[in-house]
């Protein structure tokens, strides 16, 4: 019996310890992030690897999500004779929820895992220690630019995802099925408010960007420096990013959209 409690206690202590470690790590990144902006090419390089290289998967997935939303939405709406509202359905579900969340999940598995692998491998090959020896802070030189690259590219990718999704919905609704073009856009514009819907979606994607980038660099930096440790760290990055995104999404939705 005492063993069970001991296990629970050690789990709680470990959890809190890890939380404190992440918080201190986050603080260190913020403190050392001056260099990622004075030597902007460090951050630009990360923007290229996590932003530009994710473009293809984000654009294609956004298009397909929009196509599916168009088909399924039309299928349901036309039963109630409301097929003109297809634009509203597609745009609201993308801008508020699907855009930030799905783009965040894709970003975590496409870019977050890569960042973890890169930093983890640097730790295995003792490059981080070497940097420390040369009085170059690895957090300023390696971690902070990757963090900011993720934070900046995430809202842009989410916006691209939503825009592509709306285009996909339009393609199915207007071009293929034949919903009236004017009604599609007019009803959409009537229902989607810039501040209430679009801006809240952007805020969501920004928060997801911070969460995913922080988890990715932390898991890489914290990994056990073996081949197995790196692979476990990558798995943890994807799993905890996905959980963090979904949990944060619920919390933010309940604050933002209370009808």
């Amino acid at each position, binding site marked *: 019996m005492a063993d069970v409690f001991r296990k629970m206690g050690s789990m709680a202590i470990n959890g809190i310890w890890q939380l404190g470690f992440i918080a201190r790590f986050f603080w260190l990144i913020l403190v050392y992030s001056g260099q990622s902006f004075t030597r902007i090419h460090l951050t630009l390089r990360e923007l290229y690897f996590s932003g*530009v290289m994710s473009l293809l998967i984000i654009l294609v997935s956004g298009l397909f999500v929009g196509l599916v939303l168009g088909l399924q939405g039309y299928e349901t709406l036309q039963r109630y004779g409301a097929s003109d509202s297809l634009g509203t359905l597609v745009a609201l579900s993308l801008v508020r929820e699907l855009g930030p969340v799905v783009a965040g999940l894709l970003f975590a598995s496409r870019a977050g895992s890569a960042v973890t692998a890169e930093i983890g491998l640097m730790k295995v090959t003792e490059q981080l220690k070497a940097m420390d020896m040369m009085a170059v802070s690895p957090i300023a030189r390696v971690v902070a630019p990757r963090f900011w690259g993720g934070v900046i590219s995430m809202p*842009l*990718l989410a916006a691209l995802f939503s825009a592509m999704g709306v285009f996909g919905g339009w393609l199915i609704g207007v071009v293929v099925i034949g919903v009236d073009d004017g009604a599609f856009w007019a009803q959409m514009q009537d229902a*989607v408010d810039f501040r209430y819907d679009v801006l809240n979606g952007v805020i969501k994607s920004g928060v997801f960007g911070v969460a995913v980038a922080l988890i990715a660099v932390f898991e890489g930096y914290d990994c056990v420096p073996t081949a197995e440790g790196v692979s476990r760290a990558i798995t943890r990055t994807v799993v905890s990013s996905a959980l963090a995104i979904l949990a944060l999404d619920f919390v933010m939705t309940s604050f933002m959209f209370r009808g």
Partner: protein
Amino acid sequence: MSRTTMDLWVGVFVAMGIAALFFLALKVGSISGSDIQSPYLLSARFDNIGGLKVRAPVKVAGVLVGRVSEIRYDNERFQAEVVFTVDGRYKFPTDTFANILTSGLLGEQYLGLDPGGEEKLLAPGDVIKKTQSAVVLEKLISQFMFSKAAEGEPAPAK
């Protein structure tokens, strides 16, 4: 990959992202909050507001002139008080009629204003006195059924 091509791609990426944001802001959404210029507040009391919600449109002759900003229950008059903002460009006479209407058969409810013929204009903060409540479908049906039932009854003996 050389520095310049990388910079180019990052520039293209950022430009695309910002273009997508503009697309979402202008084509998908409408910046309706700032459409209303120099707004002022008016209010109206209703016996029943039906399904009217905050941010519902306020329309005159079908044109959007404002939005409902607050709905509360007045516990002294036992009525609902609806506060709404109206675009400063539009003025209405004091005998304006406020109705709660529905767009379409199942659409959302909105506040419709019918301007009267009075010379004096409503000032900011004024209360519209002539109102008509929302039509509640159940009441309408029960009225119809009672009147039908009354028709069927034999005339009372004199």
